[in-house]
């Protein structure tokens, strides 16, 4: 059993605790994107002892509302104290707010407004090329986010400049706050849209599977002359049947009963993985 796959359930519990402690958070997308961020951070060249190392890999959470998962993953990677995050999240005067803020170690850019991350990463990837550095640049976008026009400005320029040090990941959970992405604003054929502007596209059948994600990240690293987009098909609210594939859980605060149910479900999923 992949230890990361098991760990993903421990970190989901951390996310649940952060959200309940702070009185709200984007739980659905946090849960769908857990394996993406966890797998990525297990590979990225980053060092909590030297968070500003100029040669580090960069990650920008374009879907900034899933910061609770980023906090849990950064804490696991040694950047943050998870108990401090849980105690302070969204509290008066806290630095741990509901979107990424780059005064926190390990966080590169402030986000929250959607459609910004890809352009920023194009700039980072261009800077790496200009400086002859080999760090890699990653951004994670939501699928609802793809309705933002600026995403496609960024995508076009990444293809134009053949930025093979750039990898974008789409958390394709098919849901956004008002319903399915197909109902709200269908993004169309993402593979065709991206390939048309010069991207290498990898579709991951199960974007909550660590092994499949690792294979995709390997392929992205080995792809030369063009940027790579990983379309990771995930399950929104992954971890408990109570919230899985339910748009209403985009930003739902679990009550005590729901908290207990989710906690039990996460433990059961973890247990099942351990016995696989």
């Amino acid at each position, binding site marked *: 059993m992949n230890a990361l796959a098991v760990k993903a359930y421990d970190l989901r519990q951390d996310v649940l605790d952060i959200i309940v402690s702070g009185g709200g958070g984007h739980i659905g997308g946090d849960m769908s994107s857990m394996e993406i961020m966890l797998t990525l951070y297990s590979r990225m060249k980053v060092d909590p002892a030297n968070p500003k190392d*100029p040669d580090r890999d*960069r990650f*920008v959470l374009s879907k900034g509302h899933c910061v609770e998962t980023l906090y849990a993953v950064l804490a696991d990677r040694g950047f943050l104290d998870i108990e401090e995050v849980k105690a302070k999240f969204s509290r008066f005067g806290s630095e741990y707010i509901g979107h990424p803020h*780059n005064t926190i170690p390990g966080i*590169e*850019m*402030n*986000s*929250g*407004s959607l*459609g*910004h991350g*890809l*352009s*920023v*990463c*194009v*700039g*980072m*990837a*261009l*800077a*790496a090329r*200009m*400086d002859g550095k080999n760090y890699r640049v990653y951004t994670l976008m939501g699928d609802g986010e793809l309705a933002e*026009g*600026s995403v496609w*400005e*960024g995508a*076009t*320029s990444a293809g*134009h400049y053949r930025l093979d040090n750039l990898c974008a990941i789409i958390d394709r959970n098919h849901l956004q706050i008002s319903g399915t992405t197909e109902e709200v604003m269908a993004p169309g054929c993402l593979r065709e849209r991206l390939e048309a502007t010069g991207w290498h596209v990898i579709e991951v059948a199960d974007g909550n599977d660590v092994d499949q994600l690792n294979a995709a990240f390997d392929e992205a690293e080995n792809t030369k002359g063009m940027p790579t987009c990983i379309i990771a098909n995930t399950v929104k609210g992954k971890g408990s049947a109570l919230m899985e594939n339910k748009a209403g859980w985009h930003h739902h605060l679990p009550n005590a009963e729901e908290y207990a149910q989710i906690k039990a479900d996460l433990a059961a999923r973890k247990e099942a993985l351990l016995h696989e």
Partner: protein
Amino acid sequence: MNKIPNRAVMCEVLKEAAAKDRDVVVLCSDSRGSGSMTSFADTYPAQFVEVGIAEQNLVGIAAGMAACGKKPFAISPASFISTRSYEQCKVDCAYSDTNVKLVGISGGVSYGALGMSHHSAQDIAAMSAIPGMRVYLPSDRHQTRKLFEALLQDRQTAYIRLGRNPVEDVYTEDCVPFAMDKATVLAEGTEVLLVACGEMVRPMKDAADLLNREGISTGALDMYCVKPLDREGLLAAAKGKKLVVSIEEHSPFGGLGSMVAQVISANDPKRVITLALPDAPVITGTSKEVFQYYGLTGEGIAETVRNALKA
């Protein structure tokens, strides 16, 4: 009459900096010609990024480069970079604390007959309202050089508006008093204080000369640093005056005049008149014709002062 536009001076200063520092980079949005940056792009192609007609992307890319240690100057028409990319200026530059210098070229009504889509009469208000964003409107080519040399030395984002056309000199090559974030005193006086920024500084100076010749003792302040506004400089210059008149190529709301009135009313209350563009699409014409029509000339400013003193 000077034939060198401020934007051409910007290009010269950035070329000089790029020769010494490979982190100095310029980004344009199909705007290298209007920004006078063609010779920069030709001379330092490895330090130039063409983004195409995509101003949001322009600013986002610049912010990403700055986050990786580059010193980017994102250069695009003021009307677009200040409002089309507003959110990137707010989040990716100011909020994320990245060292992006945002240069709005062809500012104000520079584009003349092209109409309101191409005019930037809101940029001072918009940019000033962003925490951490500085706003500069240099008056002539000599001050533009000093300002860009200073901006190359700091590490904080800023918005700089430049006009399209050459403007008459305010300063001379060997006399350009300049201190960062301090207004420049152009004339001393006891009765009236004029305050202007950008292309309105030259007509303000002309108005001060006219009024002083007529016996109305008039001071004049070049407030190129609209934000952070030089409050101390303003209050010192306004002390003892009967009247303060601000002049700007901007909407009457939220620009230099609003800020001057705010500082004066809170600290040294007296009459403040704001001369600006109207709250309407401006009349069709060249910059010169538009300024003439709305009284934003030496004579127009002087006439406002004479009438106010009579009243």
